[in-house]
């Protein structure tokens, strides 16, 4: 495929990953931190940025590892383990670099990094990338788009929940219950974007 065509496809995939195929609202990945952290906007923004960064880098790294290590060795089924190792190592590495060179950033993002290693959305993005057979550039767009989509969803959710804190909610629905209903309404809204593509 030529360059412009691929760039265009990358943009389309990126847009789709943010809106129409939002990894949180359509495939439900990364729900646990979503429900736990989305009480405050500030924490959500921090976690969101960390996810965007880690997801973009790890999908690209995982693409390289899959394409140039696992496929030639005929060990595709090892991707589950290898991807997890790469994600964990990468997060650890970023943590060390941040601590050393940018204590301020480490203070604000550092606490979220360990949470990310076990965020299923990160692994999920890499697995989707393999199954859909994306090329390198498209993978880059997909990883970035998925991260932004996740961040958008969690920040919007945190904003809504902050405004809800004074409302009266039935007892059984308090906490995760009402959060799921809000997420459902958001998912409904995001489906509206499908007409755009």
């Amino acid at each position, binding site marked *: 495929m030529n360059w412009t065509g691929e760039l265009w496809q990358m943009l389309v995939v990126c847009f789709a990953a943010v809106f129409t195929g939002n990894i949180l609202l359509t495939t439900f*990945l990364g729900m646990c931190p979503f429900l736990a952290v989305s009480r405050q906007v500030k924490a959500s923004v921090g976690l969101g940025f960390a996810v965007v960064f880690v997801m973009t880098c790890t999908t690209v790294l995982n693409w390289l590892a899959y394409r140039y290590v696992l496929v030639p060795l005929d060990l595709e089924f090892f991707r589950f383990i290898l991807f997890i190792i790469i994600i964990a190592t990468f997060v650890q590495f970023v943590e060390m670099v941040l601590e050393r060179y940018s204590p301020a950033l480490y203070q604000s993002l550092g606490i979220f990094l360990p949470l990310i290693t076990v965020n299923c959305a990160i692994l999920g993005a890499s697995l989707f990338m393999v199954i859909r057979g994306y090329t390198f550039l498209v993978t880059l767009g997909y990883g970035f788009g998925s991260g932004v989509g996740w961040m958008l969803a969690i920040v919007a959710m945190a904003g809504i929940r902050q405004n809800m804190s004074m409302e009266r909610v039935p007892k059984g629905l308090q906490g995760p219950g009402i959060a799921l209903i809000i997420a459902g*309404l958001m998912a409904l809204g995001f489906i509206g974007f499908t007409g755009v593509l």
Partner: protein
Amino acid sequence: MMSADPAREMTASAPKGPKKESALGRAAIEGLWNNNPVFRQVLGICSTLAVTNLVLNTAVMCLALTGTTALSCLTVSLLREWTPHRVRMMVQTLIIAFYVILVDIALKAYWPDMSRNLGPYVGLIITNCIIMGRCEAFARSNPPVPSFFDGLFCGLGYSFVLLLVAVPRELLGMGSILGIPMPYFSTGWDKWIIMVMPPGAFFTLACLIWALRAFQARGEEESA
């Protein structure tokens, strides 16, 4: 998945009695009801919620998850004497991944249609918080047999809630259960398309959590 928090929560309530029969019964009650991972703690729904628009897919996923949880707990428990403390998380991940890959290979070879339907979700069982939560909280400090049942009941508790999500979704959205058309729903019912779309999963799960928690709260008030 956030293993630290729930793990601690689960340790506090893990059964400690060495008596075998009552321990088994307690594990069942804890896993299926008192500490049900889904509606009590809302954990680990990520990997399965996406396939709950069809009962069959949900059942296969739940079976895979329950088997993986039980066997991983068993293996972690068998190795508990030899596993160095510092690398235990890595060993647990390795063991869980081992069983998940087994399931993945088996589905690919013997049930290719289902493997295509489930796509990446089988692999995502690895990052399901429930499994590592049980390994950390219970299996690594308990003998193999109780660990196995602890994992088994925890997986079954998870499965029963997700099947309760899947049945109304398929019934109201497609008028069938397990692909078999149901009387009235397949003919006279105006299908709720939203139920098979992603928002339907959120709404159904929320309503289910509401109902189960309300039910549970009433029981607690009575016994208090």
